[in-house]
């Protein structure tokens, strides 16, 4: 990795800026490639932009160059991020391959696996999904039952996965399977297989908030090539744990909407509830709870900044991650509840012209937000992890 000093970094910034100006299609300004319509049928502009960024490795700037990444320092990666933001350009290379699977494979995969799977992720060509949870294995993930049988060059897989986000769009799946029924954690293997095969069937799951990216995945004699076993046989659990750390560090900022963009909650309250003669939110009970939430959110953001500053130079997620998920998700849920309360009956509209987009967004956000404290390790599991790993208290649940 190049060690850029301040001057070189500024030169690099200039280079990135002119490249973005020359290559970013103006029609994509502010357009998120992860939005459902773009995911289903990407526009030609999005395809062009994805190819342009992918060929430079700038979608995965810190990944090694030999596998298609940018081979850059985190300082250079921040320059790219900054320049994209300046042009209101989203990084078109994303999804689970970038967030979770890629970093994990770079760490645990063999050379052939990295050569095969990392470059398409860097180019944004292959969408990955995560085959972890099962109907009978939620918080207690290690009790999973989906079975992989050894048939020479291949594993033949039978079972069911659930909450597989984006399975309907995915090309490949990284999956936890049981290869030894005699042991719990030590009987799990981490395998990769293509979703485009007869033994794989996906079914989207409508949620309380309406349609969702979550699916059920039925595996009936699905096939994974032996060369796509990551790590040792029955050694998948430690890889899964590592991957979950990447997932949780990504989920910490979950919730966008009321957490980040959109109208500030205090502004909403002033509009819907009104103000007293001193300009304070008229409902003093609501005001107190709202202030508390706003202040806690700020302390949470301060903690995210502090963790980043303290961990700078260390590429692995810090142990603060487990604390951050519970703190952040509970605050966002509280905020969703308050938005609904602030809007009153207007905040309960399901569809139609009687409600503003903001109001409809509030009710869907509130409902979908209930998932934040369940997925990626429920709040209870996170508390178990903090107790065990950070506080050193005895472990009764084997939460990982």
């Amino acid at each position, binding site marked *: 990795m190049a060690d850029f000093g301040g001057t070189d970094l500024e030169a690099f910034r200039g280079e990135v800026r002119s490249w973005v100006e020359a290559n970013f299609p103006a029609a994509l300004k502010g357009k998120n490639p992860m939005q459902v319509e773009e995911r289903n049928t990407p526009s030609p502009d999005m395809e062009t932009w994805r190819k342009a960024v992918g060929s430079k490795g700038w979608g995965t700037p810190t990944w090694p160059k030999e596998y298609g990444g940018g081979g850059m320092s985190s300082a250079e990666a921040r320059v790219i991020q900054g320049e994209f933001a300046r042009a209101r350009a989203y990084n078109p290379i994303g999804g689970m391959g970038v967030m979770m699977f890629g970093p994990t494979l770079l760490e645990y995969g063999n050379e052939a696996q990295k050569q095969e799977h990392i470059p398409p992720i860097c180019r944004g060509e292959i969408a990955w999904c995560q085959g972890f949870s099962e109907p009978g294995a939620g918080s207690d993930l290690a009790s999973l039952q989906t079975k992989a049988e050894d048939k020479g060059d291949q594993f033949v897989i039978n079972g069911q996965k659930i909450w597989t986000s984006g399975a309907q769009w995915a090309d490949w799946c990284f999956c936890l399977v049981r290869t030894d029924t005699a042991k719990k954690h030590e009987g799990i293997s981490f395998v990769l297989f293509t979703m485009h095969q007869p033994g794989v069937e996906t079914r989207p799951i409508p949620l309380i908030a309406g349609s969702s990216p979550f699916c059920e995945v039925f595996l009936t004699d699905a096939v994974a090539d032996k060369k796509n076993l990551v790590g040792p046989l029955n050694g998948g659990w430690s890889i899964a744990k590592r991957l979950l750390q990447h997932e949780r560090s990504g989920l910490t900022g979950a919730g966008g909407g009321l957490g980040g963009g959109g109208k500030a909650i205090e502004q909403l309250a002033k509009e819907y509830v009104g103000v007293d003669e001193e300009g*304070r939110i008229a409902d003093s009970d609501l005001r107190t709870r709202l202030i508390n939430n706003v202040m806690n959110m700020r302390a949470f953001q301060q903690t995210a*900044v502090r963790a980043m*500053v303290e961990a700078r130079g260390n590429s692995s997620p810090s142990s603060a991650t487990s604390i951050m998920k519970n*703190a952040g998700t509970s605050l966002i849920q509280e905020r969703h509840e308050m938005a609904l309360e602030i809007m009153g009956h207007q905040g309960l509209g399901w569809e139609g012209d009687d409600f503003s987009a903001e109001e409809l967004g509030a009710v869907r956000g509130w409902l979908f937000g209930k998932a934040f404290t369940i997925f990626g390790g429920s709040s209870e599991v996170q508390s178990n992890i903090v107790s065990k790993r950070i506080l050193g*208290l005895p472990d*009764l649940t084997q939460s990982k």
Partner: protein
Amino acid sequence: MAVLTEEQSMLRDAAKSWVQEKSPVTAFRKMRDSGVELGYDTAAWNEMAEMGWAGVIIPEEYGGSDFGYLSLGLVLEETGRTLTASPLLASALGAASALILGGSDAQKSAWLSKIAEGTAIATLAVDEGPHHRPDKVATTVAGGKLSGKKTFVLEGMAANVFVVSATSGGAIELYLVAADAPGVTRTKLSLADSRGAANVTFDNVAVSDADKLTGGAALLEKTLDRARAGISAEMLGAAVQAFEITLDYLKTRVQFGQVIGSFQALQHRAAKMFTELELSRSAVEAALTAIDTDAPDTPELVSLAKAKMGDTFHLVSNEMVQMHGGIGMTDAHDAGFYLKRARAAEAAFGNQAFHRDRYARIQGY
């Protein structure tokens, strides 16, 4: 923990080892049992001053080291761990801030060097009732005479000089009033937390322009924000220590044939406390840093720190007693000290409700 400079690390390490060696909670207990009127151990205070801690925020020309508020916060965090009672907060931070920000050369020369040496104790005399309401001041200056009553003055019995808020012609001003000036009387308050506090009465005390600090109500707010951030740092240390003592108990106390820390009902409450402590540390360090860098949003960051830290210390001190069970109720155990300190510190310089309201007002709702 914030990223520290080498000097800051050395200062913190020095504070850590001195506190462990010379000022464990047993020292605080001894001080309380002795019933000493000042509410702190003068020998320990002299040692603290000799190490330069009383001059951490004071400019070098007045004998300080000018290391800033984050640095002093590091010391307060360490002394807070063992509930060390000393004038560090009231004198070397609170009153010293008023002098640094609003003192004339003559006023600074008269007091700052002595404060830095620890040979003079100064303190803020602001509150006038059971609650912190710094904008409601009944104490007045008229015809060169200051009159009024100040309550819950920290280190009020030890102080050589008071920084007194009073209205003059309707505007809030700060005055330096020597403790031995004619018309000043003080009575010791015996409070649950055993720290030094007094009610002080000013009866037609002669003051002149030479006693007035420059800056009025704005100076008072800036000074109070420094005191609030400082006490938040002290509370952080105390809360962290209270948590660590409790965590240790969870790992050693056996009931039903196993350590009680193996019960999930207690584990999750411990995880909650740890989370709140992490969030509070961020808020406290951000407030101290904001003061050091003169950030425009310092007032709201300070209110955030004091409110968040107050909530967290409240929680941890309650859980400390509850999780210790019967032993936590006894005077022989330290849990009660942390509980009492928590409530006194919460009330000082504005409780959580005060700072939540202040935060929202600054933000316009």
